[in-house]
């Protein structure tokens, strides 16, 4: 009887005790001389069920979670027939209601195997997209991406095909692929999950991008707050090199692509693409004026594709399954799947991958399971620290880029942070300004100084000091920041502030 036990080796899973569970499994197996395998897989993204323990036996795979290390011996000693009566028993994860309604494309492999096992990746259609792309002219790869409707997943939602086309057509032989893995928005962890659970997919997407635009060098800019992700990616790149997927003569063709992992140094602004390029060049992460676009003059002044982790990973899926299959999902100009990350005060936090077009309320009803505090939800911040706080009257907005923008919000990188009714929205508005003051690169005065003044003005409003005059001053300040900042840091910090003022005025009165 060949049994496999699987316990994720994911940052969040470990942060809630997965290593203890893995140790308990090892100890229990050793105690009875059982030679069953313990696999440290990636997480499936149902973090509310972590630490998850899955048991695979005779082709059947079921889960228990969230498991405490102390519960492991009893689970392992249990007769299979009695499993369903255990309080932590979840059955087959694929059939669990939390997963059954999801459309896992980018995250199809997440959590199934040891993320560093190349054989497992290949067995689950890994490198199919690359195999296809290796035998296509660059124009055809770009065309496939364009027809898929894939848009940038980092937040700006720029059509990936158009960006790749621009780099392909840009003159010069030295070009770069720069992967933005500086996932700094609170409430987001999709990039981290993908890199830890399926790192080869990102590598595959980057090689495809390289083939498409004629770039032979790629960089992954990973934030330093993800030390475990670094280890996984570093090992994955080494294994991909050893197996001939990176380096010279990829897959025994004439194509070559080199990939280097770089680390950020704790600056939120380096998630902005031009600040990230500055940082990759070894400078202060100060944003650049556009034009020139990075696609024309990017890293080291050369044409550069700058894409988010999920965009590049999705490119691998598009090349494997075809543009039509990808474009068949979604609505309007938002094609494919959206990866929402349920965070903050929710009972069932985790990663939900679904086609665009479902409403925020439907997602909350289906997946969030209410607040962890048990109190009513009051405000939801979607799209990270620069996203609006959404009042309940906006929760029926469909999750697509245009519909969300029309409602005054932004989907961004898909973070959904839920606050219950104890939240003080004046305090949240103040935090938005204070965060901007802390993280502004300093290039644009309205952002650098406006955020400091914004914090002070909100402090006065909170202290009931000349409220009407200060509210009007705050509006004015928000206008100046929006109109006078080069990037989204200064330009969009007013979003959470204004939404708090508009929809939760009682907290400022």
């Amino acid at each position, binding site marked *: 009887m060949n049994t496999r036990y699987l316990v994720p080796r994911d940052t969040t899973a470990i*942060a809630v005790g997965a290593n203890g569970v893995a140790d308990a499994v090892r100890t229990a197996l050793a105690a009875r001389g059982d030679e069953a395998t313990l696999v440290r897989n990636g997480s499936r993204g149902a973090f509310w069920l972590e630490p998850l323990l899955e048991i695979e036996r005779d082709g059947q795979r079921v889960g228990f979670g969230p498991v405490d290390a102390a519960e492991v011996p009893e689970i392992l000693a249990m007769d299979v027939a009695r499993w369903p009566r255990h309080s932590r028993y979840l059955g087959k994860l694929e059939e669990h209601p939390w997963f059954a309604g999801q459309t896992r494309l980018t995250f199809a492999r997440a959590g199934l195997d040891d993320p560093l096992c190349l054989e497992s990746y290949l067995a689950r259609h890994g490198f199919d997209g690359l195999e296809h792309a290796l035998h296509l002219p660059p124009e055809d790869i770009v065309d496939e991406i364009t027809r898929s409707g894939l848009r940038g997943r980092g937040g700006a939602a720029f059509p990936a095909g158009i960006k790749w086309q621009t780099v392909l057509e840009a003159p010069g032989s030295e070009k770069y692929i720069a992967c933005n893995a500086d996932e*700094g928005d609170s409430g987001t962890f999709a990039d981290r999950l993908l890199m830890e659970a399926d790192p080869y997919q990102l590598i595959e997407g980057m090689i495809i991008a390289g083939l498409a635009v004629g770039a032979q060098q790629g960089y992954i800019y990973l934030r330093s707050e993800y030390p475990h992700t670094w280890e996984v990616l570093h090992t994955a790149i080494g294994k991909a090199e050893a197996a001939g997927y990176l380096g010279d003569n990829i897959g025994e063709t004439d194509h070559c692509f080199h990939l280097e992992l770089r680390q950020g140094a704790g600056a939120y602004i380096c998630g902005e693409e031009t600040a990230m390029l500055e940082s990759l060049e070894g400078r202060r992460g100060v944003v650049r004026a556009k034009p020139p676009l990075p696609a024309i003059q990017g890293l080291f002044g050369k044409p550069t594709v700058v894409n988010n982790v999920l965009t590049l990973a999705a490119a691998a899926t598009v090349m494997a399954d075809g543009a039509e299959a990808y474009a068949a999902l979604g609505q309007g100009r938002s094609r494919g799947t959206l990866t929402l990350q349920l965070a903050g005060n929710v009972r069932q936090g985790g990663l939900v991958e679904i086609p665009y077009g479902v409403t925020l309320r439907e997602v909350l009803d289906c997946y969030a399971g209410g607040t*962890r505090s048990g109190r009513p939800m009051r405000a939801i911040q979607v799209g990270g620290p620069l996203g609006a706080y959404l009042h309940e009257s906006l929760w029926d907005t469909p999750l697509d880029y245009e519909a969300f923008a029309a409602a005054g919000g932004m989907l961004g990188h898909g973070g959904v942070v839920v606050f219950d009714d104890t939240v003080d929205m004046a305090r949240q508005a103040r935090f938005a300004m204070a965060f901007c003051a802390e993280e502004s690169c300093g290039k644009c005065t309205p952002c650098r100084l406006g955020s400091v003044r914004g914090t002070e003005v909100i402090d006065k409003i909170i202290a009931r000091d000349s409220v009407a005059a200060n509210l009007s001053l705050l509006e004015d300040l928000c206008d100046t920041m929006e109109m006078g900042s080069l990037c989204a840091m200064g330009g969009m910090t007013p979003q959470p502030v204004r939404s708090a003022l508009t929809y939760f005025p009682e907290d400022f009165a």
Partner: protein
Amino acid sequence: METERLLAQLLCQYQDTPGGLLPLLQDIQEDLGYIPPESIPGIAEVMNLSAAEVHGVVSFYHDFSTRPGARHSLQVCAAESCQASGGLELEQVARDALGVNFGEVTDDGAVELKKVYCLGNCACSPSVRIDNETYARLDAGRLRALIAGLRTTEERG
């Protein structure tokens, strides 16, 4: 002398790396716990930069420090997801338990208390990082226990 040898070795390693200043500084920070201010002119010379440029980079990023760090760091996530889930209470617990404010080091030089904006554990907020380990789904009691554990490790040396 040890520091000089390390610097010389790292400078040799990174002087021809495109954009090598950041990884160079990261290695120095990692190995020494800080970037010695007196090393900046030498770094600038080898990397073909001005001392002002190197200083500019060192001072820009939160991860770099020009004074020796504490033996341990406690980073409490202060971003929105943690704010929504009890993180504000943890900030207070950390301050009280260590007797210092954010950005400060305990009197014995053991622990530096810092704020961090997101550790990527937002589905299980609130979260803290102690050195290279992250902890999520925390409450006040568990954070106090973690800090006590850190103190015990310190005393045992």
